[in-house]
């Protein structure tokens, strides 16, 4: 019972934070990426603010278990595979085109009009295709 409640609460806080920070407005996000135009540094403040509680939380995971049982994620790895690099390039392009990434795309769904719905539907379709692409990429890697 606690786990679903925590999920709902975290999602709600995440959405509230995105709205407060202005990151649900595509103009702000595109402004952050528009380094050679009217650059908007707000996203750096949002990221900076978010890193603080998160860094504290990671420290608190040491020697503890999650509240609802199980275990914390394995230590961070340094394996830079093709999927990570190619995927991040594709994501960056799409992010700039629409000014939306997955979190804000959801958080703005209730007021983003048909545009938000079309973007979210296309994103879901992309997520459905991705596992197939992953197989192709891994097969090529195995061959090489």
């Amino acid at each position: 019972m606690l786990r679903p409640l925590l999920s709902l609460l975290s999602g709600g806080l995440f959405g509230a934070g995105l709205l407060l920070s202005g990151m649900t407005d595509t103009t702000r996000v595109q402004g952050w990426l528009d380094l050679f135009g009217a650059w908007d540094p707000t996203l750096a403040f949002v990221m900076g603010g978010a890193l603080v509680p998160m860094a504290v939380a990671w420290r608190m995971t040491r020697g503890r278990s999650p509240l609802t049982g199980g275990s914390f994620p394995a230590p961070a790895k340094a394996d830079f595979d093709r999927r990570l690099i190619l995927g991040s390039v594709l994501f960056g392009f799409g992010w700039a085109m629409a000014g939306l990434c997955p979190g804000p795309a959801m958080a703005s769904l209730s007021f983003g009009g048909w545009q938000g719905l079309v973007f979210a539907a296309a994103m879901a379709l992309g997520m459905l295709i991705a596992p197939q692409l992953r197989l192709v990429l891994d097969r090529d890697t195995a061959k090489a």
Partner: protein
Amino acid sequence: MQAEWIMGLAGGLVIGLAGALYLLGTGRIMGASGIIGGLVDGSGRATALDRVLFLTGLIGAPFLLSLTFGLTPTTHASSAPVVLILAGLLVGIGTRLANGCTSGHGVCGISRLSPRGILATLIYIGAGVAAMSLLRHVWGII
């Protein structure tokens, strides 16, 4: 301008609190693309309820806040279906190939100095800046 930075910082703190609560509570990394993607491709079936509730909060809280405080949140997404569809596909495919987006690789990854998270963030911001320069200043599309 300054007020926007302060709101950015305050909103960022709330986002960080959300990630901290999610991590310490459930033991999982709060990554939007992973939470959505696991529902879409069926890989997260075992935790489907948690994912649906997380998304309910994520979509519902901004809606409730806008009703309660009478704010009218604004957003300015493109009205060109081609741009929206192509961008959505790229974001969906890209984040699932890379296993993370701005929340998972960015907020949750950088805060534990994850090399993969840091590299992914540098790449998607770099690609985003390159794309924005091309699309806006060279081709004049967006």
